[in-house]
């Protein structure tokens, strides 16, 4: 394809083409590696596919199965009226976990990043210590914490009883009420990962802004709220969006923690039946790849909508120093 002479193009047009040119590596990769499998799974969601026999088209049956019985269940208040009660249960478990893990992770990691940004002696050592947990492979972390949470033989409950005087500490992963909070605590141990993103973000806050604030007589909290926080909003935005996406797909830790326990995946009593766990069961235990793909695409839509909402809201609260104005 012959390009018209570059000089003849307008500045704006040149900028457009340059933009696309830089994005091309991703576009190629997308077309080769990603779009095929994604469309294949979309196709599967409209079929009955048990992997050993070829897929059979069933139209919207899978989607209908997931959403059937909504009115009956709401009217009677009985979750067993749902066409697929476990679909709704898994959504509930996932949302519960997200509502705890996301805010807590955000607050803790930012708090830590601010602390670790101070010129305290040995700060390199402190940073490495807090980062340490996120380096360990997820499987090992889960196995470690399963032992720590062990209500009879682990180290957490004796610690709670002897140090804090709590007479009967919870059964953690063995108790339907405490299983998800236990997983949240486990995730907080690895908060060092998001922490260093905030740390990197803090490096980008121009120090002359702090100087100006000090001159204006701002104290530490005011400096944080009026200088640090706004300048960090791009990174907070990143952690929020990605945190939400990954929280909704939480899987490995639950799999390692519950696949060999009494009641299997999602135990006790489905309290750890996360959405992706239920999806996995449908795909690889019940050999219902069609329904699993349906579940995947339903999740996709939910996360897409939530992400779009967060993006929309970003105009209000995210501040970019180098944001382009105008179209695009």
């Amino acid at each position: 394809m012959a390009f018209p002479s570059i000089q003849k193009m307008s500045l704006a047009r040149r900028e457009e083409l340059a933009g696309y040119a830089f994005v091309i590596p991703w576009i190629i990769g997308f077309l080769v590696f990603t779009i095929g499998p994604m469309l294949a799974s979309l196709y599967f969601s409209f079929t009955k596919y048990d992997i050993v026999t070829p897929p059979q088209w069933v139209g919207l049956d899978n989607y209908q199965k997931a959403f059937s019985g909504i009115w009956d269940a709401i009217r009677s208040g009985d979750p067993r009226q749902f066409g697929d009660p476990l679909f709704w249960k898994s959504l509930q478990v996932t949302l519960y976990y997200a509502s705890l893990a996301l805010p807590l992770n955000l607050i803790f990691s930012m708090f830590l990043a601010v602390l670790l940004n101070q010129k305290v002696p040995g700060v390199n050592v402190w940073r490495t210590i807090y980062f340490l947990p996120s380096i360990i492979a997820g499987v090992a972390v889960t196995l470690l914490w399963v032992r720590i949470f062990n209500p009879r033989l682990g180290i957490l409950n004796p610690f709670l009883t002897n140090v804090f005087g709590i007479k009967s500490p919870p059964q953690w992963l063995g108790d339907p009420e405490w299983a998800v909070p236990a997983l949240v605590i486990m995730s907080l141990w690895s908060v060092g990962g998001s922490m260093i993103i905030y740390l990197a973000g803090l490096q980008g806050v121009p120090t002359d802004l702090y100087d100006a604030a000090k001159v204006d007589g701002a104290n530490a909290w005011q400096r944080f709220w009026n200088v640090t926080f706004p300048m960090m909003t791009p990174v907070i935005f990143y952690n929020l969006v990605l945190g939400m996406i990954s929280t909704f797909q939480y899987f490995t830790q639950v799999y390692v923690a519950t696949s060999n326990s009494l009641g299997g995946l999602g135990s006790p009593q489905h309290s750890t039946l996360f959405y992706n766990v239920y999806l996995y069961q449908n795909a690889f235990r019940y050999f219902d790849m069609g329904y699993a793909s349906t579940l995947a695409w339903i999740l996709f839509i939910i996360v897409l909508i939530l992400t779009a909402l967060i993006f929309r809201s970003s105009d209000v609260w995210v501040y970019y120093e180098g944001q382009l104005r105008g179209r695009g």
Partner: protein
Amino acid sequence: MKKITDYFRWLFNSGRGNELLSKSITTLILASGSILILIPFLFMITTSLKDPAQIRSDSMSMLPRKPKTAEVLGKDEPLYRVIFDGQTQELALIRKMPEGMGQFVEPTQPDIIHELKINDQKQLYRLDIHWENYPEAITAMPFWRYLGNTLIVTFVGMFGMLFSCSLVAYGFSRFRARWLNLLFLLLLSTIMLPSQVRLIPVYILFNKLGWVNSLLPLIIPQFFANAYDVFLLRQFFMTIPLELDDAAKIDGANPLQILMYIILPQARPALVSVGIFHFLYAWNDFYEPLIFLHTRENWTLAVGLQTFDAIYTINTHLIMAVSVLMIVPPILLFFFSQKIFTQGVVFSGIKG
């Protein structure tokens, strides 16, 4: 005494006292938090040094230990510190009786039996560190081969990722174009679909390309950017003021030059973060490698670690040992890249 109070008064009045106070408080908070962070990690290390038999029967202990025993009539019996008749002695427990009682004897005088309540006595242990768990873990699998595979995948992938993601993030952050917003949303949407349902189609794809049973499926896609790193870099690029770009444009720089000489240097903390994250992800990833890496020769460390978690036996001590070893390179990498994080960025060139 007055001199001391004078000193403190001077400290606080000059503002240096506030700084000292805030630093001390910060250090205190960091230190107490570190203890909480490190305890599980310490547990991991001591578990890696335990005898598998101890993991079974005495797993609550933080220390690798073994019951102290003495030989009584040809058998090894556990020793207890026993107090009776006002004396403290070390006796061996040879038999457990109903009601929690036990028969204790002195190892050299097995005929004299004292019947005492077991719970009232203290069992004796000796430290029993099994350093050989580490060589055992290393020799139980082709450790060096796996390490080599892991390093190839990690570093080549990291290079490819940094290269491609810088380009793509630059495109998404510094240019006005009609479809860029939509493309960005499309980029993000690729990570919203759970990977389990793409597993089979992806496998078939790589199979058709002939890449199954090689390290290629883990490396080549990195050269085509990925949503996580592009998103992060884009956010960082957007915090860099446009004035620098404009100045360079006036000097006649083309977009690529702006990227390489203006943007990337400013974004060093972000590039380092992204590099570290990719390193960690590739270092610990086992799910997809397991599907694509056919024969054991091609496995990475993370996959090899999985073999210790078998269906009937979990070799906890070996899993912990390998996990501890696997932490070392990322830690070193992180520790030595701290410099980049401590370099604050001061936009001295913009003022005025």
